[in-house]
């Protein structure tokens, strides 16, 4: 474990994982939530978001094929379908920190800017397993289990990889219920021990410089969600 990587664990991750995305399922209805309920961070449990902040909603079969899903377009955003994996991409857009507070604006519209970033988050929920789900869906930052996570038990280690646009991401900080546990290697891989039964919440985050003139950096965060058998 290299010093810079653990320094990331100690400092950066906590900030970029300040909010949680999670999906609840009721039959074939998958609902996207945003707030602080799952990782235990302080703050409002559930935050109402704008439906247009959901950039993408995807329903995937165990074979990795996209299934036609019926999307709801009001808060909270829903996705209806027999999904082995459901996947949402969510962005609150550009943020600029100014002497007068943090504004939800790109830096070129925010006046005197101290720091600025573009926030893009995603969440994947796995309810059934197929080998195809061990490959990236090829979208935004994404956590991909390399083995069937649903067959694991508390105490088992989950082997996973973090991808962005289908390519492995090195240096992403990976946390378990908000607690940083590791940093991805060059092949995007890292191993996380599942410590408790029931719903699982694994988070990955990374920051990269941005040169679009609207923000200094891109802050990407992704959540993998599934449930262990009791």
């Amino acid at each position, binding site marked *: *474990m*290299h*010093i810079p*990587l*653990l*320094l990331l*664990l*100690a400092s950066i991750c906590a900030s970029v994982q300040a909010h949680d995305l999670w999906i609840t399922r009721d039959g074939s209805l998958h609902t996207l939530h945003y707030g602080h309920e799952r990782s235990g961070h302080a703050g409002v449990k559930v935050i109402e978001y704008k439906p247009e902040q959901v950039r993408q909603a995807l329903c995937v079969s165990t074979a990795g094929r996209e299934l036609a899903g019926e999307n709801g377009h009001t808060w909270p955003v829903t996705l209806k379908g027999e999904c082995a994996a459901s996947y949402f991409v969510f962005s609150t857009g550009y943020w600029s920190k100014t002497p007068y507070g943090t504004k939800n604006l790109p830096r070129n519209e925010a006046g005197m800017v101290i720091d600025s970033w573009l926030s893009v988050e995603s969440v994947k929920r796995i309810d059934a397993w197929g080998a195809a789900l061990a490959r990236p869906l090829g979208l935004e930052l994404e956590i991909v289990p390399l083995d069937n996570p649903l067959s694991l038990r508390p105490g088992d*280690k989950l082997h996973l990889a973090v991808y962005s646009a289908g390519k492995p991401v090195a240096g992403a900080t*990976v946390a378990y219920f908000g607690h*940083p*546990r*590791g*940093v*991805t*290697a060059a092949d995007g*891989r*890292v*191993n*996380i*021990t599942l410590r408790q039964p029931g719903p699982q919440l694994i988070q990955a985050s990374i920051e990269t410089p941005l040169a679009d003139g609207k923000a200094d950096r891109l802050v990407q965060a992704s959540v993998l969600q599934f449930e262990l058998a009791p």
Partner: protein
Amino acid sequence: MKTRLLAALALVITTPAVAHHGVASLGAAGLEGPGAPLETSSSATLPQGKWLAYLKLDHAKFRTYDPADATEADYAQYWMLGLGYGFTPWFSAYVFQPYNIKKDEPDGFRSRGFTDLSVIGVAGFKYDQGWMLTPANESLDDLMDWHFTAYGGLTLPTGDADHRLQDGSIDPGMSLGFGKPGFTYGLTATKQVSDDTTLVFEAGQIRFQKYAYEDGQTMRFGTETRLNAALAQRLMTLPESRFRVDGNAELNFLRIGRDVENGIKANATGGDMLYGVLGLRLYKDNLSLGLAVKRPIWTDLNEEPDQQGAEGKERYRAILTFSALF
């Protein structure tokens, strides 16, 4: 006088074998990850491309029994400077330069100087659903797997084995080298059993060769066998300061074989002993400071009443280590 030899020389070669303490926790910036004892070698290897600078002081104060006997050992100080490098994630190598000070009671003999340079190689491996070499990237959960190292090394006869005392005599116990390479090898096992608690085990041996001194005497020091067990317990972490304090408790068993002097097994040498070690290890950024007190808590020396100044007859040993990873 020769009984002091073991205490004096054993540390010269032993310390390199155990001198890579603290690497894992240094690598983890001291905040998370397994702890590392002070005397027992942990199963850490250096990160690839990283250097470790190391300094150790072991001050051994011996029990004395006859104030009038100026030949009784008073104290010895073993200084050690080391430099390590991680060639691969699973293989590290170290070079150590000891500097020893050995002093008899007032008016007695005294020797000091650099002794034999030593080199040690450490290969790391672990078990995680199968055996594997220590990988480059491990999560905190990976670090909680069983980790192991196999180490081996030797001393190079760079010190003055024929160092003469003030009266012109040569006493191997006060010598500044072995004369010939000595060999060390061993195995370690480490298991971080919880976020705060780490267990470490080590088995190692040191073998010496016979050396003929300038004055005609020959000596082959007895083989040393070590079995160590240690517990490192995290006591405090200040993440914002990148500061961590661990407590350490160790049991060090040592068996020393009889010396062979001029072809004859020497009297008043060798035996079994068990040391207890209590210490603290402090981490700050990529630095680590260790402080410990080591005392014999059980001994079965071969001729105990005659082995003043030998290992097992210390009043205490005060240990200080400092290391930096860069």
